[in-house]
């Protein structure tokens, strides 16, 4: 009797997890589908900034525990991406939200944003990426500038994030 209850309990948990997964999947798909396929047109730069600052709050930059990788400084993007690919980890632009924003090419000539406005949008997405990170994080930041986004936005956010374990400063692979 006890054994049967235990099995039933175990099966119930599996069922609950499966149901939760199935329930969440359509929601995630729906939220991705709600994102615009291309840049909308705007009457002013300010209108565009308001739009993208709102959009950036909705983009999915989540990573699993211990999966986040950061980089800044010359030569570090390649190292970080190689490390992420080899260790099944994630850089900002490998998240759905990072990829989406990157594809919008907000720093290009035909962007509806001024450069400093695009910096604000990307800075906020970078901050959100650090905010949601959990567990150990891996930072390829040798030569990062003190005024750069890693030093001024991402690192402070990681330091105040209570979900963070160790912040590894990786200088080479």
């Amino acid at each position, binding site marked *: 009797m006890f054994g049967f209850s235990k099995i039933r309990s175990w099966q119930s948990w599996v069922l609950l997890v499966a149901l939760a997964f199935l329930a969440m999947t359509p929601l995630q798909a729906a939220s991705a589908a709600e994102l615009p396929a291309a840049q909308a047109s705007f009457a002013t730069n300010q209108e565009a900034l308001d739009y993208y600052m709102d959009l950036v709050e909705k983009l999915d930059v989540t990573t699993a525990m211990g999966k986040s990788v950061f980089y800044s400084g*010359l030569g570090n993007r390649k190292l970080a991406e190689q490390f992420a690919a080899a260790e099944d980890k994630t850089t900002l632009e490998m998240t759905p939200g990072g990829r989406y924003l990157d594809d919008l090419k907000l720093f290009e000539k035909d962007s509806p944003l001024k*450069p400093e406005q695009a910096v604000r949008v990307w*800075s906020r997405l970078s901050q959100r990426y650090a905010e949601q990170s959990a567990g150990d994080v891996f930072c390829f930041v040798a030569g990062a500038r003190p005024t750069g986004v890693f030093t001024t936005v991402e690192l402070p956010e990681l330091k105040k994030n209570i979900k963070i374990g160790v912040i590894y400063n990786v200088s080479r692979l």
Partner: protein
Amino acid sequence: MSPGYDISIPHFYCLEYREGGRVMLFEIDFRDPVIYLDETLITAWEAPFSTERISPEAKKRILANIYDYLASQRGFKVNLS
């Protein structure tokens, strides 16, 4: 009149410079409020010109072109050294 070069920013961490059929990729973090340009950013042309030597004069010209594009034409805050 064409300036003889073309620049695009395909990624928040990359500037693509094209000149005379050659392509050079620069690692620049456009999320930073100020962009720092110096000769250490210049490494090599992309293949098939990757072994081609880049003279000091060419490096200066390329940096000046990028500075002009980013600072004068686009309004980025740029520090050239």
